């Protein structure tokens, strides 16, 4: 295993090179842009044999993905924030047409006000679409998750698109050592994409994208619910096989010193690295603190999250997003799906830095809660 230092963006581009999609329509947007640049270079040098389409907007990027996927080939695109929001209509169409598109999202705040910095509002706002969602903590996990996502999305029992989310700037523009697997190993793990549910071939004509009256629509949507829930088994199997071949084991959640914890923090993405440092520091002082990192957000792993957090007396959930007048989405979904004493903390919006002192503040406020949900780190007098 040779480790190379690279950004999560480069790691994702390496994963795409290994997965070898046929068609890559991409539109640049900060902070995903370098993904589109690495891929352009790979194609220009013949390292990936793909049609690279320099589309004129993100809406066209996802539309071209859907057209190509509908023709029966593997595709890839990447976006962020405004681009993802522009894709919204087609995001729902892609899931409804059961196209196993894999997309990287560099998590970035949504306008307005305009911000290029990190939070998770963009992908969180697509959670109803039927897409699977993984939140990666680092570049290695981003690379691995792209490969696992192709495998799961293209499974005939699933056939739903996936997005792999990485925190903008924090992961996209910092470098870490990453192991890039070899092609032969990847080919063992990821078979060729050969659909039979929908493909455009004059030898066997079919119509994709029909319209359904009230007699059919609801069943088509229920089929998606079944597929998304059913994906859990497929994800578990794919994760095991990935571990066997590549030696890295992924799960729906990652437990960090949480088995005997009294207070557990729950969060997604790169912030968990900071939380782990604080957990270690407090554990050294004898405090029973732990972290449960949610990695797979859709399908929502109710059982796995519950198993991991039920032993704690209180839970603090960090959300880099807000659903106005409701609170943080992860916090609310946990409370909706399980009976635990969980308190919500809205953090880091628009790239606001989350320091160890904020995490300690959150732990104290979880121990002695005064309110169900609150914002942390605001530069305001009275909240």
């Amino acid at each position, binding site marked *: 295993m040779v480790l190379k230092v690279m950004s999560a963006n480069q790691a994702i581009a390496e994963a795409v090179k290994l997965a070898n999609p046929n068609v890559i329509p991409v539109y640049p947007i900060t902070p995903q842009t370098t993904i589109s640049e690495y891929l352009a270079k790979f194609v220009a040098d013949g390292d990936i044999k793909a049609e690279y389409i320099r589309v004129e907007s993100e809406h066209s990027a996802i539309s071209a993905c859907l057209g190509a996927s509908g023709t029966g080939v593997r595709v890839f695109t990447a976006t962020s924030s405004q681009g993802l929001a522009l894709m919204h209509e087609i995001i729902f169409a892609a899931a409804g047409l059961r196209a196993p598109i894999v997309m990287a999202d560099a998590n970035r705040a949504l306008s307005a006000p305009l911000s290029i910095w990190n939070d998770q509002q963009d992908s969180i706002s697509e959670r109803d679409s039927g897409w699977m969602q993984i939140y990666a903590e680092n570049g290695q996990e981003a690379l691995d998750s792209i490969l696992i996502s192709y495998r799961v999305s293209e499974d005939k029992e699933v056939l739903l698109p996936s997005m792999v989310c990485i925190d903008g700037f924090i992961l996209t523009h910092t470098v870490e050592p990453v192991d890039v697997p070899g092609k032969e190993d990847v080919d063992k793990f990821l078979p060729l994409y050969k659909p039979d549910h929908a493909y455009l071939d004059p030898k066997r004509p*079919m*119509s994709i994208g*029909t319209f359904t009256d009230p007699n059919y629509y609801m069943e088509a949507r229920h*089929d998606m619910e079944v597929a998304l829930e059913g994906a859990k088994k497929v994800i578990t199997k794919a994760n095991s096989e990935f571990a066997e071949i590549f030696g890295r084991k992924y799960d729906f959640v990652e437990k960090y010193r949480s088995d005997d914890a009294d207070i557990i923090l729950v969060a997604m993405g790169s912030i968990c690295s900071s939380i782990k440092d604080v957990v270690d520091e407090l554990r050294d002082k004898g405090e029973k603190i732990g972290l449960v990192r949610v990695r797979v957000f859709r399908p929502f792993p109710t059982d796995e999250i519950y198993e991991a957090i039920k032993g704690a007396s209180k839970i603090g959930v960090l959300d880099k997003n807000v659903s106005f007048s409701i609170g943080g989405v992860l916090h609310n979904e946990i409370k909706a799906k399980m009976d635990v004493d969980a308190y919500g903390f809205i953090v880091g919006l628009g790239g606001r830095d989350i320091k160890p002192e904020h995490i300690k503040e959150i732990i104290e406020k979880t121990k002695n809660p005064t309110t169900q949900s609150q914002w942390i780190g605001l530069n305001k007098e009275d909240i």
Partner: protein
Amino acid sequence: MVSVGAAVKEPGSTRKNKTGSWRTFKPILDKEKCIECENCIMFCPEGCINKDYDIDYDYCKGCGICEEECPVKAIKMERE
């Protein structure tokens, strides 16, 4: 039972829907008068006139384009 993604794998399956029930007027083609100019075949929105100038009444909606475009008045729309 809805197919995956509501894709339809049976090309031309609208043939199950007999739109002939839509019409009020029915075209009658006189093969004696017909000069085989193919106008009616070209201009039928349903494509339901075949090479032998038989009109498929299962689908004819009675729009009257064929009567209008026949240069020798070989087609007459009759009230059904």
